[in-house]
């Protein structure tokens, strides 16, 4: 009895092995016959951004957009290589960011990458990428020194800097008759950068700064600072910082009954700003580099594809930049091959007048995109609407007027 069973088992076992072998051979043949598949060399590129922590919202939006760009190129039969993305979290912390940069750049297979949303992280990793010779394209950080503070061929930036947006910001407010401002900024390099460039532009125009107060990024209560501002009675309040601080500041400003216009920087152009504040967000102004995404033909297509992918998080303000960074990096690798030095050279020297979903992209000799356009946005009915298309510019609605 036992023998018969084992015989039976052995027979079926043999059959199974044979079937598996057959399948394997068939699979190999099929893979060889399929056009292009299996022939492409795999090239790794990295994406670094805040995927956890307080700034994970924009970080994940950027990550998704970058993945979308890579997916498009991998599906394109004309692409020479197959691209694999190495995602690393920088938590928006400089020390973690340097570790992330080291991790990506120590892997010789990683040819280039898009890195960082947070300025204080991007400024810390510039030396790392330079020392390791790995091209890194900044997709969200706006501190000017990241590109202008060095001559590294490896570091390029697809988005604009604080200088551009603050010039436009100061001029727009001055032209509308605002003269006095109370400034709040977070105490990171990012917030201090905004303070510096806004103050310079504002004072050059003849505007007056009533007070400057630095606040901590993990602070929740701003009533002390805002009560001080209330006593100063400014025409408007300028906040140089990110969304997690911008929301409570705006909320507490309303609760304390401060009657002044509230303006932020690109750091608050974020869907969660409107969602968390509800009606209190109405009339808040912020600025972002590039053309309004939904007003460009490529931009619309991007938003549709993004939606079709079914990502959980929205692309947020800098998603389109991460998307463009993905395409520019792949373009360069396609052109010169997966060689770090050549890719760095190609990106910095030969990115000129490229049509992208954020408008034309041209890098200057520091690898900085000279974005010709800054767009002002105003929160209208819970959405960021570009200023020119808003009811505020049209005169149907009013900002808080200057005193």
């Amino acid at each position: 009895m036992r023998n018969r069973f084992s015989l039976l088992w052995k027979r079926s076992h043999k059959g199974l092995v044979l079937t598996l072998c057959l399948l394997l051979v068939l699979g190999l043949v099929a893979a060889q016959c399929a056009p292009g598949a299996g022939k492409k060399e795999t090239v790794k590129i990295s994406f670094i951004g805040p995927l956890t922590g307080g700034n994970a919202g924009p970080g994940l939006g950027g990550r998704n957009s970058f993945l979308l760009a890579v997916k498009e190129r991998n599906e394109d039969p004309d692409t020479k290589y197959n691209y694999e993305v190495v995602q690393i979290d920088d938590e928006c912390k400089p020390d973690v960011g340097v570790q992330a940069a080291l991790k990506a750049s120590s892997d010789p297979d990683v040819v280039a990458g898009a890195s960082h949303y947070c300025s204080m992280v991007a400024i810390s990793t510039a030396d790392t990428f330079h020392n390791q010779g790995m091209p890194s394209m900044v997709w969200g950080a706006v501190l000017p020194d990241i590109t202008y503070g060095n001559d590294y061929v490896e570091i390029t930036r697809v988005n604009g800097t604080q200088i551009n947006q603050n010039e436009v910001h100061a001029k727009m407010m001055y032209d509308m008759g605002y003269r006095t401002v109370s400034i709040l900024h977070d105490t990171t390099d990012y917030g201090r950068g905004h303070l510096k460039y806004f103050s310079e532009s504002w004072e050059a125009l003849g505007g007056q700064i009533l007070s400057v107060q630095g606040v901590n990024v993990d602070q929740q209560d701003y009533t002390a600072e805002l009560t001080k501002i209330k006593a100063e009675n400014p025409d408007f309040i300028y906040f140089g910082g990110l969304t997690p601080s911008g929301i409570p500041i705006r909320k507490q400003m309303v609760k304390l009954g401060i009657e002044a216009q509230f303006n932020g920087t690109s750091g608050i152009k974020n869907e969660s700003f409107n969602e968390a504040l509800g009606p209190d967000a109405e009339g808040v102004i912020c600025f972002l580099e590039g053309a309004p995404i939904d007003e460009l033909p490529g931009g619309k297509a991007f938003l549709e594809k993004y939606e079709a992918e079914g990502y959980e998080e929205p692309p947020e303000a800098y998603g389109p930049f991460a998307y463009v960074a993905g395409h520019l990096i792949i373009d360069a690798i396609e052109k010169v091959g997966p060689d770090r030095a050549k890719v760095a050279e190609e990106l910095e020297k030969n990115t000129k007048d490229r049509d992208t979903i954020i408008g034309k992209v041209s890098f200057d000799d520091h690898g900085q995109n000279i974005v010709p356009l800054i767009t002002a946005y105003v929160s209208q009915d819970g959405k960021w609407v570009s200023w020119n298309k808003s009811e505020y510019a049209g005169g149907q609605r009013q900002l808080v007027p200057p005193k």
Partner: protein
Amino acid sequence: MTFLDILLQQSINGLMLGIMYSLVAVGFTLYFGVLDVINFAHGDFFMLGGFMALMLYAIAEAVGFAGNALVVVIYLFIGSMILTGVVGVVTERVCVKPVSKAPMLISLLVTLGLGIAIREAVRVLYPRGSDPKGFPTLMPQGSFNVGNIVIRYENLIIFGLGIAVIMAVNFLINRTKMGAAIRAVAQDGEAAMMMGVDLDRTIDITFLIGSAVAAVAGIMNGFYYGQTMFNIGAMMGVIGFSAAVIGGLGNIYGAIVGGILFGLLETFAAAALPYGAENKRVFAFLIVILFLVFRPTGILGEKIFERV
């Protein structure tokens, strides 16, 4: 605004901030008093309480139960206290109790890790949990002016509720049989067991109360600031602990005194010192260090800790 107006308005700001700190400090004092545990996850239970309320509110909205604001508020408070309390007891059994006999340093590290786990769990599990979340406006939004000072009804309610919660905890600890058991365990666990006190149950109840108080604080914080975020617990934990130490760790009234003092110190540092806004915490923690040097038992603490 005159100088006096500003002074009074800033005092109100400081008191409101202080009551938030006090509510967190009460939890630290409770844990330390009963278990000799410094529960650094407490700040994250505070955050978790707020998120539980948000979740319950979303459920209420989905089933169309969002009519009477008072009923909804009571539902949010009770629901969140129960849920957060249950999470508190479960984590205590899994993480804290197994190391309760080990040196204090071990339980300190375990609770620190637990805090991070709760924080990241909320971030991952709550829909788009990385973003700041707006809190529903359920408190009366009006205000009245005394001179140039704005006093919001909401502030009065939250302040009153905060004091009431702390008084209730005090009553529970000092005036009930359950409180007597907790105090007995605080003095000598083994002796209490010999007198018929169920040690495990008492520790469970302490965590239930501690987590429920943290939940109340988290919801009040959400109502007051109109928003919450998954990472607010870390700093709140450190400040709540410091407030408990200033007031006298182990003394419930000390937690109120310490919390409000810390709130006022921060507020006036931000308002009055040059570069005060960015250095207010430096200033406040400097005072904590001075306290630790010159009066290590805190304002209301005894020479030997008289525990709750």
